[in-house]
Every structure is written in structure tokens, then in C-alpha cells.
């Protein structure tokens, strides 16, 4: 048994904004010496795709800060207009790049370099008939019991 601290994360969301917390926390924990695992399930599996084509949506998200006071002149229905999601996504990406926020793929690579273990939920892969050739290399496919094997001995366990 090592005396290393352990962090277990369950990543369940597949949008651009929610893709950050698991990778930021996992890479930082690894840098601090934590043994770290992320279990990707349901929409979280999008974060394992080679081509990270993630979007952010203002819909159903009243807390999202909108550029140029857009929330003032667009009622909720306006946010559902075609093209709105694409526009918000490109604005969010630009903002992140201008503020020096890490690129998602880079952050994921840093996680893998730091030996963060990435586990894809086999059940979800089967459920959505996902093509595993679209996923990055170096990931493990397993189920809930495999997650608990590690999470049960972890010091911190997060559901994101």
C-alpha cells in the first residue's frame, strides 16, 4: 500500500464548460502527488473522444454570464434560436484562449502524462453504441465495480 493520497472523479457531463472541472482537478491533483482516476459515464464519455467537438449552451443555464449583456435583450426563447449554441460556443472558446485557460485536449494530455487513469463506462459505450475507435488511446473500459475498487480507498471522491 502506498501512502499516496487518492482522488476519484466521476465525469458525467459532455459540454465544453463542464469538461474542464474533471481535467483541471485531476491534473492538479496528480501534480500534487495524488493517485488519480476519472470514471467517464453517460455524456462524460464525450470527453474521451479524439476529436473534442464540445459545445456550451446557454439554455437552462441562468447563471451563465452572457457577453455584452445579451441576457438582457434575449428572453429565454431567444436562446433557443438556431445558431445560438454555436455562437455561444465560439465566444466561450475565444474568451478562454484570450485568458490563457488551457486547451481541453492539452489538459487531457497533461492528465495522461501524469498517469491519471481514465476509465470509460462500458455500459454507456454499449448503450449508445459508441464507436471506441473514436476514443483516445490509453483508456480502460470497465464498470461500476471497477470504479468502487479505487473509489472505496480514495481520500476524495467527486461527482461532476
Amino acid at each position, binding site marked *: 500500500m502506498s501512502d499516496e493520497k487518492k482522488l476519484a472523479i466521476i465525469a458525467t457531463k459532455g459540454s465544453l464548460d463542464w469538461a474542464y472541472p474533471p481535467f483541471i482537478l485531476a491534473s492538479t491533483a496528480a*501534480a500534487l502527488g495524488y493517485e488519480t482516476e476519472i470514471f467517464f459515464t453517460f455524456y462524460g464519455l464525450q470527453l474521451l473522444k479524439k476529436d473534442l467537438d464540445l459545445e456550451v449552451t446557454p439554455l437552462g443555464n441562468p447563471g451563465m454570464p452572457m457577453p455584452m449583456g445579451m441576457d438582457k435583450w434575449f428572453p429565454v426563447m431567444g436562446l433557443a434560436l438556431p445558431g445560438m449554441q454555436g455562437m455561444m460556443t465560439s465566444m466561450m472558446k475565444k474568451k478562454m484562449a484570450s485568458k490563457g485557460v488551457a486547451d481541453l485536449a492539452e489538459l487531457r494530455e497533461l492528465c495522461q502524462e501524469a498517469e491519471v487513469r481514465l476509465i470509460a463506462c462500458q455500459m454507456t459505450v454499449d448503450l449508445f453504441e459508441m464507436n471506441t475507435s473514436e476514443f483516445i488511446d490509453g483508456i480502460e473500459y470497465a464498470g461500476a465495480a471497477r470504479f468502487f475498487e479505487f473509489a472505496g480507498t480514495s481520500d476524495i471522491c467527486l461527482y461532476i
Partner: protein
Amino acid sequence: MADFDQELDASGLNCPLPILRAKKTLNGMESGKVLHIIATDPGSVKDFEAFANQTGNELMESKEVGGKFEFLIKKA
């Protein structure tokens, strides 16, 4: 500022990149060697303090110079 052996310019990078780059650079250094880090992320002040506390690498100096944050970390 005291002497250092290696330098890392993390200017313009945001959390957690300064810490990740610093950790990576320290990995390639020998014990006792000193890394000088320059960052512009205001959060890095508390973060490098916490990094040092948790990893055992010593934060020898932390200061602000002309709007930039500079750190000296000695590898454990």
C-alpha cells in the same frame, strides 16, 4: 532575488497551467536545485503556497514585481 538554477515563464497562463508546468519542470531537476517561476495569474500566489505545502518542495520566495508574480521553489 536569490540565485536559481532554472527558470519557467508561465506568463499569460491560467490555472492550473502554471502549477502543472512547474511540476513538470521540477520533475526534470535534481533535489536541492531552485526553480524561478514567473506568472501573471493572481491565483498562482495561493496556489504555489499550497503546492509547496503539499509536495514538500520549499517555497523560498514569493513576490510581486511590476504586476507579475515571481516564485522561487527549491526541489525537495
